[in-house]
């Protein structure tokens, strides 16, 4: 099998997944320009990992993992914590209040958690994923995620746990 992706495949991948990537990126970064940068970077990472991406039984878990990692890295490296979010006119947000609340909470958590912990917290609080889904997205055992969520929950209660979206529950 060809290891890379053809231009047509890349275009199809982009058209199919970029809107969701953007929604996730905006929820975390709260700025359109940063969110589009994150989409671009995530797409490039997908292209670089084409062989791995092709093998995914659930490609969306790969998309979520890559996009989340890119955004969290941006949150750290660009010090976006000090950048004011954009107003309600921005196209990115679906759940403005919920995502803003979650994002602020994640920024607090970022000071306390390691990289994996923050990723788990993002998938748990921002995406409302079940522990089973988080395990699938991160390619880790459910047992590991259960332990991580327990650890994060203790910390989260101290910091003021946000509402979780409708989708998942532990």
């Amino acid at each position, binding site marked *: 099998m060809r290891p890379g992706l053809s231009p047509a495949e890349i275009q199809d991948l*982009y*058209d199919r997944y970029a809107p969701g990537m953007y929604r996730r990126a905006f929820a975390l970064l709260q700025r359109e320009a940063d969110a589009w940068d994150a989409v671009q970077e995530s797409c490039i990472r997908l292209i670089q990992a084409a062989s791995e991406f092709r093998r995914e039984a659930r490609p969306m*878990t790969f998309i979520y993992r890559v996009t989340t990692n890119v955004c969290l890295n941006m949150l750290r490296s660009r010090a976006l914590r000090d950048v004011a979010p954009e107003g309600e006119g921005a*196209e990115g947000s679906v759940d403005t209040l919920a995502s803003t609340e979650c994002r602020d909470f994640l920024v607090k958590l970022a000071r306390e958690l390691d990289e994996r912990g923050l990723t788990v917290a993002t998938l748990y609080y921002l995406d409302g994923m079940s522990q089973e889904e988080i395990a699938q997205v991160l390619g880790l055992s459910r047992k590991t995620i259960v332990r991580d969520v327990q650890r994060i929950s203790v910390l989260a209660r101290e910091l003021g746990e946000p509402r979780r979206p409708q989708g998942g529950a532990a």
Partner: protein
Amino acid sequence: MSEHLSDLVLDEVLAGGARPPHLESCGACQERAARLGAHAARVRATPDFSRVRARVLSQAAEREARPATSWFSALLLVPALASLAVVMLWGPRFGAEEAGPEVPASAGGQGIRVKGPPAVELLRLDDGQVNPVLREGDAVALRLRSGGRPYALVVSVDAGGQVEALWPAGAVGSGALDAEVPAPLFQVTQGDFVVHAIYSEMPLRLDDVREWLGRHGPECPGASDSTVCQEPAGLPPATAHAAVSLAVEAAP
């Protein structure tokens, strides 16, 4: 578990995946899916969506044009020069005149190898200089002469002792020189390094020579006037070792 589908599942549905039975019977999930779908449609209609798509395609095309080899962890390859890659001194068409008489390959191939003293050189593509003091960003090609041996393993060792296979690229052992494989091209970054070529009659494993490389610099052990070693101690019989020490200066 929640009674509702997560955005992950709804995104899969929106991307053309299977619809879970729950979605057909749950108004809340249908509403959520419709909301996510409408949002995706609005995003697709923005100028940024097209702009970023163009950038992604452009970056992907640039990547595609680059050879897949790497040299050290931070080095970039030179895509535009890939067509000039065959500068190694082996094979029926290249380098025979300057390197000596042609002899039939003794093992592993149908090509003709170049006879002559073993050597390894780096050729700067800009001006053709051999083993010059390089500047960061210089494009170079490997030039090998095996002294009649059919296999080669070329590695770089940086100042920190980090060993990386240059040819075959990223390999764990020797490659057959009669294979018509393009020579790798590299764009160098700053630092000092030694390029070692180990030529042999039989393939060698990188792990088997790694320790030996760690103990030897570019010089031939026991010979003060040559960087070429015929049958150096510690390597299998009929093996030759050639090395070149190079420095890469910072770009002006």
